[in-house]
């Protein structure tokens, strides 16, 4: 399993890929950061919220994370290297986990780049640490869930561009599913509203951003990750059976 993890990391870090991703992410974050600062008025207490920034950052996820995950399985299939992995003494489950961990590592690298903004703030002022840490935990889990989702979509196809586009659509839909559930039309049907709400990550994240770590929210993200990874595993195995 470790060799696959290492190989995935090499493909991210030996190429400009991971750095470009991290840079783009920082750039987008700094955009939110500078608007945050620009909004400061001349009152005695200058305050802005990092957690609010994270909300806009999540929107950028939709564009960045599918690009991160699109190649995971699609490229293996395109290069014919899936055969190599499948005929090596490594089980499919471990291949999925190794690739997931590699994607998570790049994602952590991207998140680490954004730590610079709270640091700058801390030098000139004060940062509410508890809230910030909770927000980071929340955003980490949300991203991890999207990575698992992106991997699943990548396992469906052998064209990485298609994987990215479908990933963007699905993630976009998932991001706004709670807003959709709150529309007057859906609100007429409480059952549907409740059902849609079960998939909504945003209300869960809002607890994190306010500084709460609730077990139910953690369970939501973790179970979503596990379900998506198992689904990925099933899709890969199923494709082997249906190949022809």
């Amino acid at each position, binding site marked *: 399993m*470790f060799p696959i993890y290492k190989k995935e990391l090499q*493909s991210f870090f030996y190429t400009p890929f991971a750095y470009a991703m991290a840079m783009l992410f920082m750039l987008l974050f700094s955009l939110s950061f500078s608007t945050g600062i620009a909004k400061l008025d001349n009152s005695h207490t200058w305050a802005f919220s990092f957690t609010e920034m994270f909300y806009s950052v999540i929107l950028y996820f939709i564009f960045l994370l599918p690009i991160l995950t699109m190649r995971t399985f699609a490229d293996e299939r395109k*290069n014919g290297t899936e055969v190599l992995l499948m005929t090596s*003494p490594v089980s499919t489950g471990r291949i999925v986990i190794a690739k997931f961990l590699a994607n998570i590592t790049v994602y952590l690298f991207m998140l680490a780049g954004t730590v610079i903004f709270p640091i700058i703030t801390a030098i000139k002022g004060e940062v509410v640490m508890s809230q910030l840490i909770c927000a980071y935990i929340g955003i980490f889990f949300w991203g991890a869930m999207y990575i698992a989702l992106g991997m699943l979509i990548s396992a469906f196809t052998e064209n990485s561009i298609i994987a990215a586009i479908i990933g963007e659509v699905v993630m976009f839909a998932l991001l706004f599913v709670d807003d959709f559930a709150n529309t007057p039309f859906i609100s007429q049907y409480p059952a549907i509203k409740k059902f849609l709400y079960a998939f909504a990550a945003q209300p869960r994240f809002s607890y994190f951003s306010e500084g709460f770590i609730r077990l139910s929210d953690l369970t939501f993200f973790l179970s979503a990750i596990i379900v998506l990874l198992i689904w990925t595993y099933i899709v890969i195995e199923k494709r*082997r059976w249906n*190949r*022809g």
Partner: protein
Amino acid sequence: MLFCDNKAVCYDGIKAPCFYFFNSDFSIGKEHLMITIENLTKYYGSNRAVNHISFTINDNEILGFLGPNGAGKSTTMNMIAGYLPMSDGKVTINGADVTKEPLKAKRNLGYLPEIPPVYPDMKVHEYLSFCAGLKKVPVGKRKSEIDRVMGLLKIKDVKGKLIRNLSKGYKQRVGFAQALLGDPKFLILDEPTVGLDPNQVAEVRELIKSLKKDHSVIFSSHILSEVSAVCDRVVIINKGDIRAIDTIENLEKSFTVSLVLHIKIKGSKGKAASIIEMTKGVREITAVDDEGDGVYSFTVQLEGDSDSVRDSVMAECLKNGISIIEIYTDRPNLESVFIELINRPAKKDGLRELLDEMPDESGDSDETEDEDETEEKEDE
């Protein structure tokens, strides 16, 4: 569950070197040193690609897998290597069933698929060290192992190059090097010489021959001369059916039984015919053509050693004053054996006759029934 899996993996990662040794020592028991393939069948939807094939690969043997394009060679190899699941049947590698104990089975296996499984954005040595890790080569041995396979395939000069920049021949050799990593007992090579230049083809053939010392090799090709140059035994396959399993000599011999002698003489037709018929080793005269001016050409069926029969026919004719204008034997070579086997419809009797290796009589007849059924369906 995720966490559990993780732990198991780490554990395995630490134990891997010892396990590797233990495993390979353990599995070198005399009786298991082979791959057995029993009733292997593959359907793609309702389309049957491989039909109940059975054979074994013995220790230190090069087995040629010969058939035209689309015969089911790659499908069979993918199934043996555990990439494609089979619709029916069983593959056992060193006693480990590929579907039931895949990890154990795959440790003894090196596989070079039809398209070399290389990552275009990796350098050759990076790729090989990745594969060495994947195949659980102990960390301490990896460097020497990679050097060894690079030496064998003569790819040391490109080891720092990106695979995407390599020519097809080099890519093929990098893929081949990957299959040799970890010194697996069995090698499955799917058309390893495709895309190589003649010089490289000769090198690769030599390499495959030299591998025989420590490995057993299954080697597929649609090029006959290649198979006859390298392999000990040949499995001839077409449209998913095995047409023959035998050594090359036996295949040739079995078809040289029906040797044909062509002789053109000048002189008395009846006299010549009686002389020829009297000669030992002549079965019968099948045709006599009158070509005018007292020239007759005989087509004669021979049995036994064709060369000596030809010589004695010639000697008898000359002794009796019949002048020979032309004499030659029509010897079916492997090429025609191959073509005949491929084109022969897989009839029940033919299969019985050919598949000495298939012990299961009931399986044999089932197979033919199956075939009839599918043929009917196709007709519909």
